[in-house]
C-alpha cells in the first residue's frame, strides 16, 4: 500500500558496486517506504541478485560509490549480522546447506539476536519451540524439519519455505526476496506467496526480485521496477509487470542503446 507520508525505510542513491573487477551495479536509485511492496524484474545479469547481496553485505561485493540509508542511517558501514539484527532480511535464491548445525538451534539463535536488538527478552529453548511451531503453520512445514541440519536434504520448495519461516521469526522491516518463486511448483508457490502476504504489513516493506508474473498474481506489488545493465530503467505500477509478460524484454535493449554508456 502506498502512503506518501509513511516512513522511508530504504533509500538507495546512485549505488555502484562490483564483484572482483567486474562492475555490476551502475547507479541504482530506489526508495522504499513502510507498507509498500516492490517488485524488481529484469533479465539474468541485470544486477537484481547483486543488488540484494550488496544490501545484505555479502563480502564478495564491494561498493564503489553511492549510498544506502536504512531508516536514515548508513547501512553500508554495518556488518552483515548487524544489518540482519536491525531488520534487513535477504531471502536467498539458493539457500545453502549447513550440515551439523541443527535447524532449530540456528533459528533460535537468529531469533534471539533480533529480539535482543529490539529490546525484547530472549527466548529459552522451550518458549522458542512454542513460537516456532506456531510459525511453522504459516509455511505448512512439518516440525520434523526442525531436527534436521539447516537446509540439509531439503527440496527446493522446502528451502524456500524455510526462508519464509525465518522471515516469520525474525520479523524484518525490509525483506528482500531474491527469486523466492524460482523452482517452485504451483502449490509451493501459493504457500510462499500467502506467507509473504501475511507477513507484509503497514510497518514493513518487501522487495520481491522475480522474473515472472505468476508470483505477482498472488502478491500485488505497489511498484514494479525494471532493471537492466546495473540500473533501474523504468518504474511503474502493477500493470508494468503485465506489460512485460506480453512484450518481453526486447524494448530494454533499445532503450539502453539510446542511453549514454557509463564509463565505470
Amino acid at each position, binding site marked *: 500500500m502506498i502512503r506518501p507520508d509513511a516512513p522511508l525505510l530504504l533509500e538507495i542513491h546512485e549505488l555502484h558496486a562490483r564483484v572482483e573487477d567486474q562492475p555490476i551495479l551502475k547507479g541504482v536509485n530506489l526508495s522504499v517506504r513502510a507498507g509498500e511492496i516492490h517488485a524488481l524484474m529484469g533479465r539474468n545479469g541485470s544486477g537484481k541478485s547483486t543488488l540484494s547481496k550488496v544490501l545484505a553485505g555479502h563480502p564478495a561485493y564491494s561498493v564503489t560509490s553511492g549510498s544506502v540509508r536504512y531508516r536514515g542511517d548508513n547501512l553500508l558501514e*554495518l556488518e*552483515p*549480522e548487524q544489518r540482519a539484527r536491525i531488520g534487513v532480511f535477504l531471502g536467498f535464491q539458493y539457500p545453502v546447506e549447513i550440515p*551439523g*548445525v541443527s535447524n532449530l*538451534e540456528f533459528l533460535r539463535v*537468529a531469533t534471539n539476536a533480533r529480539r535482543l*536488538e529490539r529490546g525484547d527478552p530472549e527466548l529459552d529453548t522451550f518458549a522458542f519451540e512454542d513460537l516456532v511451531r506456531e510459525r511453522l503453520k504459516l509455511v505448512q512445514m512439518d516440525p520434523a524439519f526442525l531436527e534436521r541440519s539447516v537446509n540439509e536434504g531439503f527440496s527446493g520448495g522446502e528451502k524456500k519455505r524455510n526462508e519464509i519461516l525465518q522471515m516469520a521469526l525474525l520479523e524484518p522491516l525490509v525483506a528482500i526476496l531474491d527469486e523466492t518463486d524460482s523452482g517452485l511448483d504451483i502449490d509451493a508457490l501459493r504457500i510462499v506467496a500467502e506467507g509473504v502476504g501475511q507477513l507484509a504489513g503497514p510497518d514493513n516493506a518487501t522487495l520481491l526480485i522475480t522474473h515472472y508474473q505468476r508470483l505477482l498474481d498472488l502478491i500485488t506489488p505497489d511498484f514494479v521496477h525494471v532493471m537492466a545493465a546495473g540500473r533501474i530503467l523504468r518504474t511503474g505500477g502493477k500493470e508494468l509487470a503485465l506489460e512485460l509478460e506480453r512484450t518481453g524484454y526486447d524494448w530494454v535493449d533499445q532503450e539502453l542503446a539510446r542511453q549514454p554508456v557509463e564509463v565505470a
Partner: protein
Amino acid sequence: MSTATVGDLVSQPYKHGFVTDIETEKIAKGLSEDVVRLISSKKDEPDFLLRFRLKAFRQWLQMEEPDWAALGYPKIDYQNIIYYAAPKQQEKKTSLDEVDPKLLETFDKLGIPLSEQKRLSNVAVDAVFDSVSIATTYREKLAEHGVIFCSISEAVKDYPDLVETYLGSVVPSNDNYFAALNSAVFSDGSFVFIPKGVECPMELSTYFRINSSDTGQFERTLIVAEEGASVSYLEGCTAPMFDTNQLHAAVVELVVLDDASIKYSTVQNWYAGDEHGVGGIYNFVTKRGQCRGNRSRISWTQVETGSAITWKYPSCVLQGADSVGEFYSVALTNHYQQADTGTKMIHVGPRTRSTIVSKGISAGHSSNSYRGLVQIGSKAVGAKNYSQCDSMLLGDQAAANTYPYIRSQQPDAVVEHEASTCRISADQLFYLQSRGVGFEAAISMMVSGFCREVFNQLPMEFAAEADKLLALKLEGSVG
C-alpha cells in the same frame, strides 16, 4: 566498511599462559642411572619400584626414538632436560589450608577451585602441579565407598601390593621408547581403584598443570575397576607459554574386569606454541586399556586442542568376551601445530565390539593426521568395528591425513570405515551472518556441529567447556 575477514577475527590469547612464582626444587639436567635412583629416593619409594624404574631405564638405553609418525620436529636432547621438579612445600598436606596459597590460587585461576567453599561439586579433583600431586579433594567421601583416589606416589606407599600387581601390566616398560622413558622417570599421576560392584559416586578428575620451563613432564596414571565396578574420569591439562619446547611423555593404564567399565575423558589444552610455531609442548603419550573381563567396557573421549606436537593413540585390548572399546576424538590443530593421533582397537575375544569416531579440524598451517588400527584376531569370532573419520579444513594452508589400518584374521568379522572431508564455505558463513549470527559465533556453530557427536560423550559440565575452548582456539582460521 569491510566485513570481518578471517584475518580480522580477534586473536584470543592463551589465557592459561601465566607462570606461578613459587619456589621449586629441581635436580640438575641430564638422565643417567644415578638420576633414576635419585628420583626414586626423593620419593622414598619401595624397592620394587626402584627395580621397575631401573629395568625400564636399561631398556630405554637399548631403544631408538621412533620416526614413523607424520611429524617433524628437531631432535630432542634428552640430556638437556630436568627430570625432577617439585614445588617446595614439604609432604602432601592433609588439609588444604596448609597448601601454599599461591598453588591454590593457580588452580583457582584455571577454573579448578580446590578450597572447601568453592570446589567443584560432585567432582573429586587431584591437582598435579609440575608432576607433583598437591591436593586431592573428597578423599574421605570416596573412602566410604571403598574407592581409592590418590596420587601414584601415595598409592605406592599406602597400597604397594595393588600398584605392584597392576603397574606396567597394560603398558610394559619396553612397549615403546617413550613408555620406557616414562617408566624410568615418572614423577606422579593418579591412582584409582574401584572395588568389586562399586559404581563410583562422583566423577574423578586430575588436573595437570606444568609450571617450570625446562623440566620434562612424565605422568603416570593407573585406573583399575574390579568386577562390576564403574567410574568416569576426566583429565585436564594446561601449561604456561614458554618459547622453548617441553616434553610431556605420559603413560595411562586402564584395567577393567568382568562387567566393569571405565570412561576416560581428556580435555587437553597444553600450550601449542605461538602463531609462528615457536614454543609449545611435545605431547607423546601412551594410553591403553585392557578389557580383561567379559562384558567389560572402556571408553576414551578426548578433545585435543593444544600441544605443538601431539602423538597419542588411546587404545583398547578387547580380551574378554563381549567386551567393548570406544574412542571419540576431536583434535584441533592451528598455526603450526602437528598432530598424529588415533587409536588401536585390538579384538582378541569373541563378539567384541569397537567404535571409533574421530574428528579432525585443521586450521592455519597445521597438519592433522588420524592413524588407526583395527586388528581382529583369529579367536575374535563375531567381532564388529565401526570407524568414522571426518576432517574439517579451515583455510587453504592446513593439511589433514588419514592412515587407517585394518588387519583381520577373522572371516566373519564386520569392519566398517567411513571418512569425509569438508570445509567451511564462505557462503555458509554468510548465510548464518545474514541471519544475525556473528562471525565468531557462526564459525563456532559450524565447528560445534561438526564435533557434536564427540562432545555428547563428555561429562556434561565439560561438554560446554569443550565448545568454548574450541571457539577460543580458532583464530584467523577460515578462508
